[in-house]
């Protein structure tokens, strides 16, 4: 079985860099049979997911007063709300893309969303300290999601 990790976000918009940064750290681990990509347009997930059985998507979630908190959401039969983890700051968000894939019968066998709550998406800002400090927790959540299945 092939696995894919997608980091969603924009490195030039503060904590929106979470997805790409976590993806880059996962890539450095050199896990066998795991493809890693960075994207800032969630809709591309539809095509990316089609080629993989196990997919983990990492994105910043909107600020809710707990910057740096990590959420893991196993996509099952329940519909994701638009403000579910991995909303980010994008037009057609990750949650909507997942639901679109579901409506089209294109969900992978196993899909996990890992969200790291942002403090700010200010253009040009670096990642905020509480978010940066939890990046490795998000990396571990991604690795755990990959390890749950026997690939």
């Amino acid at each position, binding site marked *: 079985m092939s696995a894919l990790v997608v980091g969603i976000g*924009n*490195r*030039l*918009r503060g904590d929106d860099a979470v997805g790409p940064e976590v993806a880059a750290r996962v890539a450095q681990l050199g896990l066998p049979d795991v493809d890693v990509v960075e*994207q*800032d*347009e969630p*809709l*591309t997930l*539809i*095509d990316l997911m089609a080629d993989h059985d196990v997919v983990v998507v990492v994105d910043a979630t909107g600020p809710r007063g707990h910057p740096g908190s990590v959420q893991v959401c196993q996509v099952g039969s329940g519909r994701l709300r638009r403000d579910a983890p991995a909303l980010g*700051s*994008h*037009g*057609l968000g990750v949650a*909507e893309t997942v*639901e*679109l894939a*579901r*409506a*089209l019968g294109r969900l992978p066998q196993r899909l996990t969303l890992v969200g790291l709550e942002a403090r700010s*998406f*200010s*253009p*040009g800002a670096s990642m905020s300290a509480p978010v940066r400090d939890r990046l490795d927790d998000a990396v571990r959540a991604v690795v755990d999601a990959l390890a749950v299945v026997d690939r």
Partner: protein
Amino acid sequence: MTHQGRELMVGTLARVEGEGAMRVVVRDGQVSDVQLRIYEPPRFFEAFLRGRSYTEPPDLTSRICGICPVAYEMSACQAIEAACGVTIPEQIRLMRRLLYCGEWIESHTLHVYLLHAPDFLGYPGAIEMAKDHRDLVERGLRLKKAGNALMTLVGGRAVHPVNVRVGGFYRFPTRSELGALRPQLARALDDALATVSMAAGFEFPELDQDYEYVALRTDHDYPIETGTFVTSSGRTFGVDAFDTWVTEEQVPHSHALHAHLRDTGPYVVGPLARYSLNHDLLPPTARQAADAAGLGPTCRNPFRSIVVRAVEIVAACEEALRIIDGWSDGGAPSVPVPARAGTGHGATEAPRGVLYHRYELAADGTVLDARIVPPTSQNQAGIEHDLRDFVQARLDLDTEELTRQCEQAIRNYDPCISCATHFLDLTVEEA
């Protein structure tokens, strides 16, 4: 609630790129105020570019928007090459046009199928629409994927192409690599024609607006990667005169600047402007499709922009096939661009309309000053004008339905809020 005095406030504008806010105030049965509030970050990217090397703006500005990175790269390259006094050869221009066709296909298809069609087919969004119209959504995704494939081959990556440089490309794809895309693009052309037929069959609210249209125009091709400015009242000016023709003014309700054309006032850029000022330059299949859709040589109903976008997808597929079929290997993928002191201007037709860049360079190529004017900020005044007329004619609707229709009216412009801003709320208040 009475319909004579109310204020429509919508906090989250769905299905626009980014987030936004709208506020419409009705007093004594008259629309008294319309504000599309766009919260633009401080002109961060312009400041961010100062002090950088002249080779960096194409890549850095491409990260402003995940939907139209090529537009930013192309306007930046053009402006920097102009500042350095370099003219690129025809083959590089054609490859840039080909890359840009990929972005038009991808961006227009995303908007037509997933953001705008649900309005016309009566669904709250693409997910609900996909359950009843799976084939339609699959066609849209297939078409978008063709644009993606073109951007990946020519640009090096689908989002934020890495193959683009000042002076051209790091590498040209070969004729054989381009030929391998041909079947996918031929299918995309068929899908694009089906898209025009679909869009032409929608019902459109009556709204004819007497805007000043502004677009690029060339003497040879439908404008994409180059051109000079033309307007619907017959004015013409070069890209290097944009600064003297267009002024941007701060308005109290927005951090984005409102653009005004000299001696005219607000104006509109984008597919309707491009089409109406360049109908005679559409490639033949696109022109036939436009005629069959009943568009005529100009289009002044913003709700019909979905048909014009579909026609432009046809044009982009047709142009891509033409460039691929005529491609010969062997040309240099880039030309040297030695740094020199000077100011350069660049303007290209992003999917949403004219995107202008200006750079002032020091002799060693350091960027001293940068100015970026994205299409959405140029259209903001036009969108507000539409909303004013649109709401006034529909005050008998209840607030929920009127708000829904206002959102649709805003989506006519496919506003790319992340280019002009980061956050936007759409608000409808009772007064």
